């Protein structure tokens, strides 16, 4: 019971922390906003606490651990696939959203 109370209070603290991290600008690195990174890290911590203590994964046999985590692993694979394609398209120029409006619109109009 005590654990639950502690966890709940911790969640509240993290929630406030989330907002605080939002109010200050942490700047960017390689086009990735640190605010996003921090916000996601905090979110992951919150989620982990809910998973482990509230959802009792901690107390369950290993197989439940596997089930609970494998889906997130799959999700990461998917996101990695999408993002990698986006970045790579930027690199090898198969990707032209920005140039489209001007040049292509001119093409379309020329018809």
């Amino acid at each position, binding site marked *: 019971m005590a654990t639950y109370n502690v966890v709940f209070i911790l969640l509240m603290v993290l929630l406030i922390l989330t907002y605080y991290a939002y109010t200050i600008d942490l700047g960017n690195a390689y086009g990735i906003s640190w605010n996003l990174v921090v916000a996601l890290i905090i979110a992951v911590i919150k989620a982990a606490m809910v998973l482990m203590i509230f959802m009792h994964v901690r107390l369950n046999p290993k197989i439940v651990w596997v089930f609970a985590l494998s889906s997130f692993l799959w999700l990461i694979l998917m996101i990695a696939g999408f993002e990698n394609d986006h970045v790579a*398209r930027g690199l090898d120029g198969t*990707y032209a959203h920005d140039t489209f409006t001007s040049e292509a619109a001119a093409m379309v109009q020329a018809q």
Partner: protein
Amino acid sequence: MASIPYIPSYTRRETYLNAAYSIKSWLLTKDHKRIAVLYILSITFFFFIGGAAAVMMRLNLMTPKGDLVLAETYNKLFTTHGVMMVFFFLLPSIPATLGNFLVPLMIGARDLAFPRVNLLSWYLYVIGGAIAGSALIAGGVDTGWTFYEPYSSTYANGWVATTIVGIFIAGFSSITTGLNFIVTIHKMRAPGMTWFRMPLFLWAHYATGLIMILGTPVVALTLSLVMLERIFHIGVFDPSIGGDPVLFQHMFWFYSHPAVYIMILPSMGVVSEIIACFTRKQIVGYHFVAFSSVAIAVLGFLVWGHHMFVAGQSIYEGMIFSLISYLVAIPSAIKVFNWTATMYKGAVDLRTPMLYALGFIGLFTLGGLTGLFLATLGTDMHLHDTYFVIAHFHYVMVGGAVMGYMGGIHFWWPKITGRMYPEWWGRFAALVIFVGFNLTFFPQFFLGYLGLPRRYHAYPPEFQVLNVMSTAGASIMGVGYILPLFYLIWSLKWGAIAGDNPWNAAGLEWTTTSPPPPDNFAKVPIVTEEPYYYRRLDAEAAAHAAAAAK
């Protein structure tokens, strides 16, 4: 086998079939065996709808101008064919029928873990099928089964949203089935049934279940986004507000590539059982075949991009997906080699199921190898979206998945119905299907190499010869698929009484009576040995014969 005289016992045993006769006892049953039978009936229905569409297409393609139907009708036909066959036949084909029937029997359980959920999955399937089917037949949809954006959301005519609703619902039937299999195989195994005493059929279905629960939700969400865009015009993929149609393809294939493993893996499981039984041997390299199923399921999730090499995906991503696609080819190769090696020094009995299994191995080999052409960047940029893709896909799906399904149906027919199918007709139909199939799809490899794009309602005249060959084959294959429909129904009444174990086969499902009693086993079986103990069975049979001779 033939060497064992079977003495039928005429004492009336209670079976899952004669336990109750009311309609209610079928429609509200929680017995996995009855649900399997319901599934068999419903997927057969959808199979013949999709098949009819295919026949119409092939007939239309006999002439370069495509004189039989209008262009739009043709587009609706191949959409009907694709949607019906993929979502309503191939996906549930083996898992929902043979899997539903056999998974509990093979692990020695009384039922699946969640019988109610199992029944729910059948209802979801039927409702989804009814919605999609009515949409496809009433209005028709001309997007193709891939629903590519932005055509499907903005430009297509027809009942796209309705069809998607149907597929969405049927998707959850697939999820619930997979969920049931995974949990059942984890928790319901009979005492002594360790993981490596499980028949390969179960390994295959476990892997299939993984794909079903991890892949299906993605396509469910993706298609519902398409539906939103079509109805409310708020589009995640809508290029006119900066949406990326290629992202749709990413999300679609993230499920739809693994989905082809949902179709082929259970078939591989079936083939493993049949090969073992009709060579009277253990499967060579049991562990390799078992793990290759899981490997295919896992790696299969990492190759979706090979459908998009020339679709605007980046070159680098293409290289990654190409490489992993080869890796997923290796487990398949391992399976094929092990099956073939199993025949070596076996006692090969060419019964109908065995014919289908051997057909599977040969056609799957060709289908798999031609898949490499499409996984190779350099050749895919020529073959992509041509008839080569169609030929490859059908070699794997029809030559693979459907062959396995037919083989499985014949192999377990005595267990399901308690009757034998007519052997001669069985072999004849198998032969007709094999010939018709190859005549239909082999020419399409050349059509594709010559550059004829898929989904063409009319084509330049120089492609006519090959198209006519293909159409001829299709008609033969059609006959081949109608034959079993008749003789299997015939066998229900006039087929020979099968007895509990007509093949003298290994595996728990053969230790119970056939048809099995409602609770599958009189007492909980206790497993004490590896699967495929055919050597022991044959030794006992020989002893029997000797005793009988005295």
